[in-house]
């Protein structure tokens, strides 16, 4: 553990490394302040709203903390997955917005291997890993399509991933899952959507009397895995080199003999696999089936999570928890006569301030670093 902290914080050897932590924090604070102004301008009490929001979010201990804490981590695990999926592609210089499609692919594959006959009878210890492996293979392959087209044909990944999102959506909700579709439950069971998964496929609960399951532990392991890959391996070294030179067509890594097209395909596979893993959590941990109408959006929210987390694995872990907390506390703000979509405004504001981070950084630098320096200079002048 000490080794990890040492590597994350000390090894950076940047003079103002704490800026990388302070800037997101200040952005969040600014977003909350601006959000308060919005509430105030409608004649409601911002203090009450925030109190309700955070008490119910699972971040602060209080009554019913246990269940809201569990719900917070439950949704965080999915946001972290899609956030990591975006970030790992972004680190390699690819702007993948395909997490949405990969997420629902993961969900539907998890549902299929959860209920389908030969697998449903297996013991949980084999069944769950099997499902997760299949989910990552399918999700990864979905991402690989975009990676292949980018690497071999030079087609921009943004266009391909957007189209793949729609293809995934139409395949699943237009053909596989609706009544009469290959994966739909039999009419006589009275279930709409896919059949329910076998109990052996459900992710084991880790906090008694809540829905919190091992998904969060799996995703924390994935966070560490992604960090390790990016910063400790030659693969990650090459990926980062590509990301930094993406505007120059990755010429420097290419000239050094790095096989960039192979790496692009590998990154996109990895990105798709992680997003799909998030999709499996929602089926194996919450819904137990692929419903006829799927409330999506996790893939796109992942972009926001990655932005707030600065594309760093540890940052995404924290920002995923934050977004999870905001979503968990969302319904509670209705007591203060504020629509439950209000936390989405906060999210948007955080992203906006993160997008303005160069300005935030500049101002912070001016106030915290320069003021110290100039005072020392004038002291020197007096002497």
């Amino acid at each position, binding site marked *: 553990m000490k080794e990890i902290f040492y590597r994350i914080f000390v*090894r950076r*050897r940047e*003079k103002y490394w704490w800026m990388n932590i302070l800037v997101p924090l200040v952005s969040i604070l600014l977003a909350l302040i601006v959000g308060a102004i919005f509430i105030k301008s409608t004649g409601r009490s911002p203090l009450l709203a925030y109190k309700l929001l955070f008490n119910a979010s699972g971040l602060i201990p209080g009554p019913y903390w246990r269940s809201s804490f569990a719900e917070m981590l439950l949704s965080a695990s999915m946001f972290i997955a899609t956030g990591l999926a975006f970030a790992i592609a972004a680190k390699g210089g690819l702007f993948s917005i395909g997490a949405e499609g990969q997420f629902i692919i993961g969900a539907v594959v998890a549902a299929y291997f959860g209920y389908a006959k030969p697998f449903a009878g297996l013991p949980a210890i084999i069944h769950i890993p099997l499902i997760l492996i299949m989910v990552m293979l399918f999700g990864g392959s979905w991402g690989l399509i975009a990676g292949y087209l980018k690497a071999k044909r030079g087609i921009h990944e943004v266009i391909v991933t957007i189209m793949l999102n729609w293809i995934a959506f139409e395949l699943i909700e237009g053909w596989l899952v609706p009544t009469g579709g290959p994966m739909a439950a039999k009419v006589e069971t009275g279930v709409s959507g896919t059949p329910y998964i076998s109990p052996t496929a459900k992710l084991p609960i880790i906090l008694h009397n809540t829905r919190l399951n091992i998904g969060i532990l799996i995703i924390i392991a994935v966070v560490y895995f992604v960090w390790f890959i990016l910063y*400790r*391996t*030659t*693969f990650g*070294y*090459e990926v*980062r*080199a590509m990301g*930094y*030179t993406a505007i*120059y067509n990755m*010429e*420097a*890594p*290419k*000239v*050094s*003999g*790095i*096989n960039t097209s192979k790496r692009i395909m590998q990154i996109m596979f990895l990105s798709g696999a992680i997003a799909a893993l998030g999709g499996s959590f929602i089926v194996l941990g919450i819904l137990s089936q692929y419903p006829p109408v799927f409330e999506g959006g996790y893939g796109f929210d992942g972009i926001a999570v990655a932005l707030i987390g600065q594309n760093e694995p540890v940052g995404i872990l924290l920002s995923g928890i934050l977004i999870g907390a905001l979503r968990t506390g969302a319904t509670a703000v209705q007591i203060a006569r504020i629509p439950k979509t209000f936390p989405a405004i906060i999210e948007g504001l955080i992203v906006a301030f993160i997008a303005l981070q160069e300005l935030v950084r500049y101002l912070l630098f001016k106030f915290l670093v320069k003021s110290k320096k100039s005072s020392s*200079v004038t002291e020197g002048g007096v002497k």
Partner: protein
Amino acid sequence: MEALAVKNIIKQFPNVLANDNVTLTIEKGEIFALVGENGAGKSTLMKIVYGLYTSSSGEIYVFGKKEDIKTPEDSIKLKIGMVHQEFMLIPRFTVTENIVLGDEPRKGFLFDYRRAVKEVRELSDKFGLKIDPAEKVENLTVGVQQKVEILKILRRGAEILIFDEPTAVLTPEETQELFKTLNALKNDGKTIVFISHKLNEVMEIADRIGVMRRGRLQGVVNKKDTNEQELAKMMVGRDVVLELPKAEVKRGGEVFSVRDLSVKNLKGILGLKRVSFEVHSGEIVGIAGIEGNGQVELVNAILGFWKPVGGKISINGEEIKLITPYNMRTKGMAYITEDRKRRGLVLPFKARENVIMGQHTLYPFSNKGILNDREIDAFATKKLQEFDVRPPDIYSKAESFSGGNQQKLILAKEMSMKHNFLLASQPTRGLDIGATEFVYKMLVEEKKKGTGILLISLELTEIMGLSDRILVLYSGEIVGEVTPEETTEEELGLMMLGLKRKEKVVQ
């Protein structure tokens, strides 16, 4: 009468003191050259005057009055204009639109394009800068684009014109054209500050010369009282060997060859036409030629970026079927590029990460795909010392090093990889004297070790001084093969312009 004076300017950047107490006076109507090595602080000083940076302390006087310049708007009001190294033009706009941008003539609320064209035409007639106001900037050569920049600042009424290394991007002909313009502007009473590190140009154009070294002004001299040697000594702080060291090395076997190589460039035109030559071990083969005569095509074909339409490339006698940088390197090629920022380095990477690029997969830098930080640090520390990279901080990002030190980083990286063929593409482009000297020494060292070197360069002195054989490239063909002993720069120049051909040397 003094046009511009700076007093006790100090500029502190996070890690370096860029300007250390600089005091300087520039007279009205003179061409004042500011010379110094890369990172000596000459550009910084002028950027402070122009308002792009603010100084940590010090005063600026413009036409005798103390002024507080905080932004470029302030300096434009004070009739100071600056032509940057990288042009700030919009390629899709016409010359006129670019020149009037930011201060457009209006007819009511509308942009009065016709009047703008008229103004630009009058302006170009007045200063003798011939230009087509209706042409799009993207269709112009670099030299003409520079004229657009000059007209742009003249239109704002600039009296003091600062040129930041204006000749770095120009061909020799364009440089002469620029010098004519500068002299015309001077005769018109304008004051010109000319930042450069090319001493021959400074000696040609300047009236007075200020020399900077490591943030300090070393002195100001009149052109007629000095010479290139003395200036070089002031710049570097010691005597500089400007003539190139020759080494007699016995030529060995063939290490690299191309046969009938033809390459199409991005425009789809055959940029290299059936070129054949070979490089032997212990030999430097120089490729001379004016820029754009097939050098880019040759380099990109050797690297495998552009697929040749015909011909073979072999290393150590073995034909490379699938040409990729990886395959070429494993067969023994190293590559020094002129494009440090794009091709040579990953700028946001630290020095330690850059020096291992290309050999990061090898033991001891990594084992089974996992990086070994301790070995990388030890190796980087050793290499930075060996190649005299300053500052020798392995945790500094590549982008924070000066051009010369970036090139040393590239050398450190490339030379530590196993190779016996070195492709050196304009290895001294944009480097100052000290770094250039370093690169020359290194090339000669490599030659002594028995490496075969293909040196592509636009600098004739470099080609003449270092090469054992010279091939002249003109519009994609080799029009001559000579040795430096039997030829002159004049003859090479004629061949480069396609006016003369010369038979192969009989060996």
